[in-house]
């Protein structure tokens, strides 16, 4: 048995098992993890079949981006929400079955038209200029129109989703954080620049240039930064001092 065959017989049953188990999982996140696993095994098969670009892009785009978006939505909707099995729109089930059948028939027909009765070029020929270069040659020459149309379609879908999800802004224009911050520093006194003290704190001012009051109501020089002292930027704290408190001298005597 070659390495490739061994890889197939180990991974293929696991992939099928995961795909079947995905349908029977109760929690949506479990299904998502199993689906991610199926995608990764597919990517490994692509790489083993000498299509490294397809394999890696499969992981980056589907496992990395699409499944991650799924998980994002699942988490956003809620951790414990489970699917309701009640048929809300009548006849939905039959429509779904019909659509699935029609889609698979179309798919089979297209693949059959492309594959059956035609001699395949072979991997050697297809990868002659390198796998990535060969793919790029097709994407940007023969199929450039289809490629562009699909990207236009995707952009339209994304724009549509943005328009649908757009919410109207409230009439009252909110000023930005930056504007408010600038305005605070342009106030008449520096008092507006500092925030309010915590609730329950005995303070009638919270500015840097105003000395803190000692228990006896005297201003404390220590509470002002040396720089402000040197610049003489110390505000008069008289109006904030308490009147009539028993005076205590520096030794703490009354």
């Amino acid at each position, binding site marked *: 048995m070659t390495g490739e065959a061994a890889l197939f017989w180990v991974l293929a049953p696991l992939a099928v098992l995961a795909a079947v188990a995905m349908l029977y999982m109760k929690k949506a*996140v479990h299904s998502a993890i199993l689906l991610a696993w199926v995608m990764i095994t597919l990517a490994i098969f692509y790489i083993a079949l000498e299509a490294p*670009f397809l394999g890696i892009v499969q992981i980056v785009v589907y496992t*990395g981006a699409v499944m991650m978006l799924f998980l994002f939505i699942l988490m956003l909707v809620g951790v414990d929400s489970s699917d309701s099995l009640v048929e809300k729109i009548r006849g939905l089930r039959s429509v779904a079955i019909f659509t699935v059948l029609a889609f698979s028939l179309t798919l089979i027909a297209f693949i059959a038209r492309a594959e059956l009765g035609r001699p395949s070029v072979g991997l050697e020929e297809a990868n002659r200029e390198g796998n990535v270069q060969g793919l790029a040659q097709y994407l940007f020459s023969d199929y450039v129109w289809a490629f562009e149309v699909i990207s236009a379609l995707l952009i339209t879908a994304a724009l549509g989703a943005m328009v649908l999800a757009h919410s109207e802004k409230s009439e009252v224009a909110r000023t930005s954080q930056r504007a408010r911050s600038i305005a605070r520093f342009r*106030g*008449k006194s520096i008092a507006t620049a500092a925030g*309010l003290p915590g609730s329950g704190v005995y303070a009638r001012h919270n500015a840097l240039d105003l000395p803190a009051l000692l228990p006896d109501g005297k201003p404390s020089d220590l509470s002002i930064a040396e720089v402000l002292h040197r610049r003489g930027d110390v505000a008069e704290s008289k109006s904030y001092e308490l009147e009539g408190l*028993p005076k205590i001298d520096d030794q703490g005597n009354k």
Partner: protein
Amino acid sequence: MSNASIILDDPTWIIVAKGVLIFVLCVLLTLLSIWGERRIVARMQMRMGPNRVGPFGLIQALADGVKLALKEDIIPAAADRAVFVLAPIISATTCFMAFAVIPLTGEVNFFGEQTIMQLTDLPVGVLYVLATASIGVYGIVLAGWSSGSTYPLLGGLRSSAQVISYEIAMGLSFVGVFIYAGSMSTGDIIAAQSTWWNIVVLFPSFAIYVISMVGETNRAPFDLAEAEGELVGGFHTEYSSLKFALFFLAEYVNIIAVSSLATTLFLGGPSAPPGLGFTSAWLGGWFSFIWFFLKVLAFFFFFVWLRGTLPRLRYDQFMKLGWKVLIPVNVAWILVVATLRLLTQQSASRFVIAGFTGAVVLAVLGAISVYDRSKIKVEELANQVGPMPEPSFPVPALPTSLALREKEGN
């Protein structure tokens, strides 16, 4: 000879030896980088940092690892057990995978065999690194979901959105390198930088890659998924013991992985700095590993520097930066690179190339000028809010002097 053909004729024992060497190197580097980060951040904050266990505190990280392993392993009752156990395993296994395609040295003599310290050279090597990174994030997102608690869920949610948006910017920053090197294999990209490193030629791509690699590894200032000030510990709040240690390991290995990729893509990988090319033959070629190591360490220091300097971004600012700045700038830059590349390939005359470059520079200057003029002036901004009212300080009722005097009288 390209890297791929040199590696191709490796015997099996060399491949196994390389794999083991890379794994050991990553684990050792993690231990060292945890110590290094703590010491450097400590210096930046005028502290000493860990200096007790071993010389200079070198084996502090090892001691911490042993401590973590011996702690009780708790799985919360509300957690989804299977996924809760799976998440750290995903994180810790995928983080090593990126190193398979990164050449750590130039051509070296490995016990008599000429080889390169690189496990394999894929034609889509750089995209492979992107793919392993995108699987690795599943660890973080699933950890957040499976913990069955609010803060981890918020952390996981943030992480998934963060990764989707920053992976786009990161992938786009590769495009410039691909166009310039004409290949996606790491070996060819290094070979294409033999005259000029890409950091000079493709500086905008480099800048965008460096920003998005910090976002991709969940490091400060973009560490919104763990944000200890807002979300306790984010996605790993409920984790303890070895499972937490695995997340820790994954974070540091990831930092080294993205730094190695940056070195490979933009700093010429293991090649010596210009003018020192003669060193690449020293020690049978092994001296090139020192150059590689130094470049990776420089990136690691940058990570630590960022952490020591910048405050964490607000979530909406972070998303705005990703979608409204990094991605559009990157797309415009790719157009410029592609045009220049085509002009040189078609061997256009120098005047055409110079004319195009001049036009681009003029357009950028014009755009900056228009943006600058349209910016609202500081005066206007202040006027928008109007004069700030004097703040009123709600002070609880103070004991009146009368009451105090009465008290004294008693």
